[in-house]
């Protein structure tokens, strides 16, 4: 089970839970199941089957951007964070 | 010498880096514009066009000037040295070598102005203190280096030039 960390402002959809456990071999699978388990949440993270523009996924500390095919380990930790630019 | 011709342009005769040069210019054109756009000497840069950054520095009749603030017609009869004339066929000027070795440039757009200005300083004062270098170069803005390595490069070059003299 991958652990998905839910950004504070979106915890309404998870009944306040800061972390949820979701089965999935890729980021895409987790995201699809997230929406199924917590209606409304997926739509804030994903748009038209893509991670919303301007968000990045972090898998086990690695910034994998919007690459939904990224593989997950059974114990993977997943974050969704706003993408950053630089100077 | 400057003579007005029919188009409203002015014929100017001058000396640049030791070579006699003729050009036609509109009276409103600055020396910087003529150097860069008419004569292809693009080493002098435009950073502000009003005398605040030194990127356009050239030496005119022995005086360090901001070429953006000199009208091109004022160059008539003058002798002008630009960055293109600093190195010789034998090699780089000690200041240029010192800038390279001291990593005294980042983006490099201010560098021609600094080298022209520093050369004018060392011609006047071959043994400047760090304060004198900073004071003299206060008319040249560099946004990349924080000046540290530029000042060191100038002091380093001064030392080499004194040793060679």
């Amino acid at each position, binding site marked *: 089970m991958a652990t998905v960390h839910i*950004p*504070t*402002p*979106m915890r309404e959809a998870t009944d306040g839970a800061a972390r949820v456990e979701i089965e999935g071999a890729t980021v895409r699978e987790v995201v699809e199941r997230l929406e199924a388990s917590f209606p409304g949440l997926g*739509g804030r993270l994903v748009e038209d089957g893509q991670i919303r*523009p*301007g968000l990045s996924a*972090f898998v086990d*500390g690695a*910034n994998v951007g919007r690459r939904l095919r990224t593989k997950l380990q059974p114990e993977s*930790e997943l974050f969704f*964070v*706003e*993408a*950053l*630019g*630089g*100077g | 010498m400057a003579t007005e011709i029919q188009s409203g342009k002015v014929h100017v005769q001058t000396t640049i880096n030791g070579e006699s040069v003729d050009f036609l210019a509109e009276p*409103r054109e600055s020396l910087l514009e003529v150097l*860069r756009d008419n004569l292809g000497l*693009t080493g*002098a*840069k435009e*950073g*502000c*066009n*009003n005398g*605040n950054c030194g990127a356009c520095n050239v030496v005119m009749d022995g005086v360090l000037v901001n070429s953006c603030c000199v009208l091109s017609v004022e160059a008539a009869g003058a002798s002008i040295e*630009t960055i*293109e004339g*600093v190195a010789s066929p034998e090699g*780089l000027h000690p200041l240029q070598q010192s*800038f*390279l*070795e001291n*990593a005294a*440039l*980042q*983006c*490099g*757009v*201010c*560098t021609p102005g600094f*080298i022209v200005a520093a050369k004018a300083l060392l011609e006047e004062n071959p043994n400047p203190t760090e304060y004198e270098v*900073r*004071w003299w170069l*206060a008319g*040249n*803005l*560099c*946004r*990349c*280096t*924080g*000046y*540290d*390595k530029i*000042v*060191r490069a100038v002091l*380093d070059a001064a030392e080499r030039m004194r040793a060679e003299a």
Partner: protein
Amino acid sequence: MAVDTRVGQTIKHHDEEYKVIGTRPIRHDGLEKVTGEARYGSDINLPGQLHGKVLRSPHAHARIVSIDTSGAEALDGVRAVITSAAFPDPGDKLTGGGEAPGLPLKFKSANMLARGKVHYHGHAIAAVAAANPHVAAEALKLIDVEYEVLDPVLEVWDAMKPDAPVIIEDLYTAKADGTTAEEASNVAAEMLYEVGDVDAGFAEADLVVDREFTFGVVHQGYIETHNATAHWLKDGHLHVWCSSQGAFTIRQELADLLDHPITKIHVVPMEIGGGFGGKTTAYLEPLAALLSRQTGHPVKMAMDRADVLKATGPTPGGYVRVKLGVTNDGMITAGYANLAFDAGGYPGSVVGAGCRCVFAPYNMPNAKVEGFDVVVNKPKTHAYRAPGATHAEFASETVVDEICRTLDIDPVEFRLKNSAKEGDWQLAMPPYPRIGHIECMEAARDSAQWQTPLETAPGKKRGRGIASGFWFNIGFTSSVTAKLNSDGSVTLLEGSTDIGGTRTSIAMQFAETLGISVEDVDPIVADTDSVGQTDVTGGSRVTFATGLAAHNAANDMKDQIVEGLADLWDVAADSITHADGTFSANGNSATVGEAAGLLEEEGVFPIGKNTVTPTREGGAFAVHIADVEVDDETGKVEVLRYTAVQDAGVAIYPPYVEGQMQGGVVQGVGWALNEEYVYDDDGHLLNASLLDYRMPTALDVPNIETIIVEVPNPGHPYGVRGVGEVPIVPPPAAMANAIHDATGVRMSHLPMSPARVQAALAAEA
């Protein structure tokens, strides 16, 4: 023994020994830059070229009633005049790749040439192409624009009021929970980041310090002004020469804005005279392209300095509140921050990054940070070196200093005790990987400056301040293609514009990996047709990411050489070893140069290539120490001594790491003491020149002592961390803390200009 003062100190926390990495070769492009031969964007002149100029709004906020260009068109020498009508309708499209993907394209398009409404003083209205720049400038005066002038809103705190004039009538706040506001306002976005339980954390605190700070707008101040030359051929091919931080970004923006196929757009990166985040987006390129399409001639455009200051992308002004709770023994229990940044005339400030940096140097068990992106009648703001972090950490590092004073705890000890370290939680992010804040703080503590008591002078107010800084660094995508020449030298094409010696730092990583000398690598910044996708030179990413691509490309080349030699020597490829640039197997051996010669005879010419999007940037920390003297009569602050300490991971090219540190410090000192956009009540920018927008000169600063700390980044084969941005973060706080040490006065606005310091001193007295 004489100390070589050119070399700063380096403190290593690793045992790696390298042959090329860490040395100080002369940079490959140095010669052209000291002789004036290097070609920057404005140095190019094409046959038949016309010159373009832009008409700009004299008002900060106005409706455009009508534009009459006929007078300009009639002027002798004028070849074309365009307004926003020349741009395709952006509809609801979003921007593509690049720095900030996913923003509405209509905003970017309207920032190129105003569409119906003016959002700031200097907003582009129309553009002219003419035979020479003087005629183009005259033509601008003949364009007749009728405006209906509106009340401007200049500061975030005014723009956020419920009765503020709404600048963009259909802007609905994007809320932190992913929903959208029902009513239009100037707040483009709200954000919220939280960890732990702040209320409980503050309840545990013995001392809570809660302070507010405000900021003026500052500009990146690169010395080269923006320029672009475009040639639109009749078959639709568009060639563009520009000085941008990212040729591929410009290509993407042109494709988006002009609705033109990306394959037909070719962008040539010229040398660039500084950027610092301000040259990550197009301003002139689309205008030059449209004017060229209309006239059939190449069109060259260049801004003057007033244009640059008025109408490019300075970094935001705004507001930051920081509240910190600590126990009496100096442990942080909770933090709260609230940041409102001005986006300028269109949405999209750097406030999100600021929110996430505000407490970054510390292990924060409980923290909450709110952010607001606010539209005001000023130029659309952009990144400036560690975007958002300087504002945020000026506030938090000043509050930390106040706490140390109040509790009488040494500021180094406090920071060491509370420092973030590997495994600690970051706000709304995965836990920290290996980071070097503690190592930097220890190096600062042990530095010559910290160990030398501040020299007092009778009648002089002198003080010392210290501050930390953090910036994330960015990965993005980079590409390298390297060709092995028959003499064993390598021509290396890379896509990153070189703003400060990165050709060499990339080449050094290639040379190290292949085992050749850096002089045998010839690095070239290639155009968008000649090298793979490469994102902007920004986010401190070039030496990290493009360097990684060079490392990978060298390994690719190595594999091809091995394959060729295996064939030639009739051995198994895996029996060939490679050490110190020599390939050996079974009694055969060849250096890279010899191998190149052998392979040439076989018709084999290895080309190593790589495109990489690294995922572990590894954040960067810095600690700075400032000694200042404050003139109580004039309020002028002088920097007496300055030391910058920074974790570079592994410094590939140390003189240019030091250069980044020193340059960042001096920009930070300018921001701290002088630099600020000055507006009148009607929103006119009053100081759009380098005389009045005063940046530090050589006379305003001392030498900047540097200490490079090397805590390798586990996310890079050579341990590289980006170094370009974080050095601008600590200076304002270090200076403010030093001013307090000297005078007892706490400054709460940047810049701490003489007038402000004088007023604060007077108020205290």
